[in-house]
């Protein structure tokens, strides 16, 4: 490791490297199986359950949890909350890696992955919400990459091009928020075409709004959660500026997350009332729905509020973890649990170990690349040549 900020790079045989290495080897083996034997050999997908874990987790959760990018950059650059500036770079990097991995993971699920550019460059199915998702994700991935490049240019010492990109910040941020609004919501809207397959407690014409609003809570919570993790593992890479603002970011984002979760709870109830689906609450699915709403929306909303009032960072971080789990739970419920609820249990889907393996593989890749970049580029600290320039 070349960075001077890294204390004593010992042997490469750390526990992290060994486990990560093993997971990556496993991932590569399953990759070979997937592309030689077909989807049927590695997944439990079938004609009734065309979308499984790879869509439910890798795509839906991946995109929601990468929402920290647009929420943080919007807070800092559009709403002018400059005190969140230190959180922007880690959030942008996380978002960029998140989306890149979403696209990467999609290659496993698509029947003919090399045709992924077809909907944009060959024949546009503009009536499809998936077209909107594809177009926005492609554009947003580009935006995130450009937003990330200043850190890279600073690392490489390319001053001129860096200053050009920095001038584009506001335009990129606004474009990023527009694209995020569109694709976060249209991931929910994907399911509006199938009212007969999704349980009424989760189906709503407001699904796009639910997905968008919950993505904000997810983004804010991920910034807190991921900041906490990085704090533990990458503390040596952080400069005083970052550390000084860290607690302020946690408090500010916690406050915002509490409000957003409150709003989310409210609109979910409005959705329930609009569909007049109250009677379903007394069923098994109703119980599960209440677990999601009370345990993973109302509870973290309350914990966030208390944590902010009492300036209890530990509590806020716990609330962030619950919210992140809650987002995963919600996306699983929409795409897997409440989907095809009308089918007998023998025809329902449960992922294979190999599907889970690929998802773990993708997450591991993300962590490894994140570590690689943050231990080299100015993410958690300002580059000495550009101090206080922002």
């Amino acid at each position, binding site marked *: 490791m070349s960075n001077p900020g890294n204390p004593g790079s010992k042997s490469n045989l750390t526990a992290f490297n060994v486990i990560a290495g093993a997971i990556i080897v496993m991932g590569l083996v399953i990759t070979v199986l997937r592309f030689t034997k*077909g989807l049927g050999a590695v997944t439990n997908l079938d004609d009734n359950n065309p979308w499984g874990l790879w869509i439910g987790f890798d795509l839906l959760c991946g995109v929601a949890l990468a929402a920290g990018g647009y929420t943080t950059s919007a807070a800092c650059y559009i709403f002018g909350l400059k005190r969140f500036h230190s959180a922007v770079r880690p959030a942008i990097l996380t978002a960029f890696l998140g989306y890149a991995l979403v696209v990467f993971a999609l290659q496993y699920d*698509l029947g003919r992955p090399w045709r992924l550019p077809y909907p944009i460059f060959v024949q546009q199915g503009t009536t499809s919400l998936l077209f909107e998702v594809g177009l926005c994700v492609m554009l947003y991935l580009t935006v995130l990459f450009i937003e990330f490049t200043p850190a890279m240019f600073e690392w490489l010492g390319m001053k001129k091009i860096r200053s050009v990109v920095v001038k584009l910040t506001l*335009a990129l941020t606004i474009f990023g928020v527009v694209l995020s609004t569109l694709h976060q919501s249209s991931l929910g809207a994907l399911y509006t075409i199938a009212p007969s397959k999704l349980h009424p407690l989760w189906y709503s014409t407001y699904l796009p709004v639910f997905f968008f609003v919950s993505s904000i809570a997810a983004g804010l919570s991920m910034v807190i959660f991921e900041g906490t993790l990085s704090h533990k593992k990458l503390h040596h890479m952080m400069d005083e500026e970052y550390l000084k603002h860290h607690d302020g970011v946690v408090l500010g984002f916690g406050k915002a997350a509490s409000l957003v979760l409150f709003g989310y709870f409210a609109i979910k109830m409005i959705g329930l009332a609009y569909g007049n689906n109250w009677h379903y609450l007394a069923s098994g699915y109703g119980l599960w729905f209440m677990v999601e709403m009370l345990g993973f929306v109302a509870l973290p909303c309350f914990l966030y509020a208390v944590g902010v009032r009492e300036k209890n960072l530990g509590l806020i971080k716990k609330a962030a973890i619950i919210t992140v789990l809650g987002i995963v739970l919600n996306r699983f419920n929409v795409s897997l649990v409440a989907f095809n609820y009308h089918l007998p249990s023998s025809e329902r889907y449960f992922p294979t170990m190999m599907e889970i393996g690929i998802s773990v593989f993708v997450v591991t890749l993300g962590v490894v690349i994140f570590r690689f970049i943050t231990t080299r580029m100015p993410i958690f600290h300002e580059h000495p040549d550009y101090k206080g320039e922002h």
Partner: protein
Amino acid sequence: MLRRTFLGMLGTTCVGASIPGIASASKDFKGHPGSNGVLFDATRCIGCRKCEEACNKVNDLPAPDKKYDDLSVLDTKRRTDAKTLTVVNKYKADKGPLFRKSQCNHCLEPACASACFVKAFKKLPNGAVVYDETVCVGCRYCMVACPFSIPAYEYDEPLTPRVMKCTMCAPRLAEGKLPGCVESCPKEALVYGERDELIKIARNRIERNPDRYVDHLYGEKEMGGTSWLYLSGVPFTEIGMREDLGTKSAPELTAGALASVPMVAGLWPVLLGGIYAISKRKDKVAAEEKKDAVANAIAKASEQAEKTLSEALSKADVANKRQIEVEVKKAVEEALTPKEEESDENSEGES
């Protein structure tokens, strides 16, 4: 900068508004005029599986595990799959077993076509919904979208999987032939013809035999209407057909979400630009106020300082004057004293 931002927003708005057909959910699409369809009469079907056999043959599908005259297959519930584009299932009823054929219903506004992001599905003017494997990416959103759970997928093809579903025998229709299943049905449980005609035939059958049929022509309105129509002697749920699908077509279901796209693309930059302008202005005002306050403070301080200085000066002046006076007095006194002494001396000397 502000002007440029505004022009950018304008551009975005125009692009958003000019994407054609993005929200073109027709209000009440009745299908292509003169398009065809098939009427299936469950009261006539005897579960002989001749239609399955014909379908397998005309579509060059792989041979089934059990022969088509083996009716034990009917004892288990089956659905269409990559090797079977149509299936007949058996349902128990009070009067005895009932049979129902299932295959693609060829919706008037197909969910698969509306969901496909490469337009791999197309509703032909003759009524058939066909699939183009040369553009299919294999995302399987069509399978998620289809309310009848018809499209199937070649999960065992590693690199060239296709979505498989009934084509209404579009290639045979083009040659002027009947769909394979219709041609092979020995009981005329299947009738091919113009959809409007089929509706008339069906209504006529219900009218003439009200005891034989339930008064519902399935597919006339379901999901915006389908080219396949069904008659039954028992409620359709009893022969495995969902009656809770509603009459909204798939494009209607997603129209709202699609219509909001240009709105978000148009409004968001304006709103966000406005918020940015406000926060920037707030910063600017705050900075100016700070500057003013500092200037004020400096002015006040310097005024004070001047005042103190001038006071000090004037005090110093007075003090100085006094000192000068004192000094002068002293000097004068000093100057006078020796003279006096001198004069004293003089007078002393004189005396």
